[in-house]
């Protein structure tokens, strides 16, 4: 028992080193498998069966895919409707409540969020596995903050009014929980193509909610949406304060859940049982 490593190589595994040895053997098998797979793929490219093969991306696609039979369409509909990031998971509430006071703000925030969410999530799904969780979590935030600088320069140059009205919520987009949580929960465990679909869906789901809330708040506060007057001489200034945002979010979440229940009930009626388990 002097040298446990030599013991492992002969086959008798015991005690403390059991798991390490098992892990090592698994890793060797895995590497052998991926190497054979790689050479097979390169052969296929040479023969012209498949167009191209990128070992890094395609292997990650193949090996780290969650085994689920949900298609791209299902992922998209889940992200927007059934598992809306704001209304179901309570992600990205702060910008909606704090800065979603006019439709312009809402549109600007949703575009900004998507511009940061998309590259961070795609990069997380390609490279995220190479890092440990603490490094990964800080990299998402730093990457988002770096990406925000050119975007905010552009905004400052062309739309200074929007930058003024967003205030501190412009820099706070980079720490929005929407970006980091989505990357950590979905992008890490899924393929690049599914991550792209999911980030589009998440961005759209967030944009729908923030635009709805901010349009209602602007209508209540000024009687007009983006200059178009709907309610003449109407002004309810507390609508710009945060409590209106929270209450509207609650009402919209309840309405969304009611719609979801209705849609699931209808689906069960038409397609039989098992659909509503989503």
């Amino acid at each position, binding site marked *: 028992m002097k040298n446990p490593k030599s013991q492992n190589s002969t086959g008798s595994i015991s005690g403390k080193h059991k798991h390490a040895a098992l892990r090592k053997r698994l890793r060797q098998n895995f590497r052998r498998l991926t190497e054979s797979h790689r050479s097979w793929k390169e052969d296929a490219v040479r023969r012209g069966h498949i167009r191209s093969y990128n070992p890094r991306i395609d292997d990650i696609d193949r090996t780290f895919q969650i085994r689920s039979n949900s298609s791209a369409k299902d992922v998209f509909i889940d992200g927007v409707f059934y598992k809306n990031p704001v*209304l*179901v998971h*309570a*992600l*990205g*509430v*702060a910008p*909606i*409540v*704090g*800065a979603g*006071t006019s439709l312009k703000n809402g549109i600007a925030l949703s575009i900004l969020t998507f511009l940061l969410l998309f590259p961070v999530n795609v990069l997380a799904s390609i490279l995220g596995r190479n890092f440990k*969780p*603490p*490094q990964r*979590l*800080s990299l998402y*935030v*730093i990457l988002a*903050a*770096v990406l*925000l*600088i050119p975007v*905010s*320069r552009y905004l*400052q140059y062309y739309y200074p009014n929007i930058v003024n*009205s*967003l*205030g*501190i*919520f*412009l*820099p*706070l987009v*980079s*720490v*929005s*929980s929407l970006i*980091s949580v989505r990357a950590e929960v979905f992008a890490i465990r899924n393929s690049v193509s599914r991550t792209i679909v999911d980030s589009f869906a998440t961005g759209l789901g967030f944009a729908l909610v923030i635009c709805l809330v901010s349009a209602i708040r602007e209508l209540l506060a000024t009687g007009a949406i983006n200059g178009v007057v709907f309610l003449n001489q109407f002004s309810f*200034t*507390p609508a*710009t*304060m*945060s*409590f*209106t*945002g*929270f*209450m509207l*979010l*609650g*009402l919209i*979440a*309840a*309405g969304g*859940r*009611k719609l979801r*229940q209705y849609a699931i009930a209808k689906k069960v009626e038409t397609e039989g049982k098992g659909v509503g388990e989503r």
Partner: protein
Amino acid sequence: MNFFSQYLMLAISTVVAENLLFSRGLGSDEIIRVIAKPKEFMLFGGLLTFFTTTSSIMGWLMDVVLGRFNISPMLISQTLRSMIYLLVLCGLYYLSVRLLSKYAKDFYDYISRALPIAVFNTAVLGAPLLFAKLRVQMLGQAYADNFAGAIIFGLCVGIGFLFAASLVLEGIRQIDSMDLPDAFRGLPARFIYIGFLALAFSGMAGHQSVI
């Protein structure tokens, strides 16, 4: 004595009247996520208080450095400023992870899930940005432009978060045992409850537009 009363006013206004959650919605995602696990919430609040204090001290330090080199604070945009804060916070986070996982393994296992959420959230990054705004508003008043002011502001942001979270937690315990319509159960009821609390606290700050 005048000085002391000013600090007291600063503390009370940051904890109660200008509570970050109720007046601006900062940290609302974290509050809703933490409340799902009530055991973690004191730990989370403690960590958050530590990091808000650090970040507001950092904001004060940055202005001091800028003043030393005669750079106008207006030249550095809020995004660049926040990126520098984030870089420092990342360094701090990484350092604490390395040190704790090496020397205090049990404690690290205990806090490892709450730590990243406590560092990278809107409350921690919002505190120095808001404190910079406050200093611009209170220009000429000594207490705002002070190391002690930064510490008190950061501490009170964290304490305000704990205060808000405990209020929300207690309310949600009551709500969950009530007969609610099916659609309102859970998250929608929480949103509306936080909205009512924010309405109550908005009376203390007076009518001000957000941001």
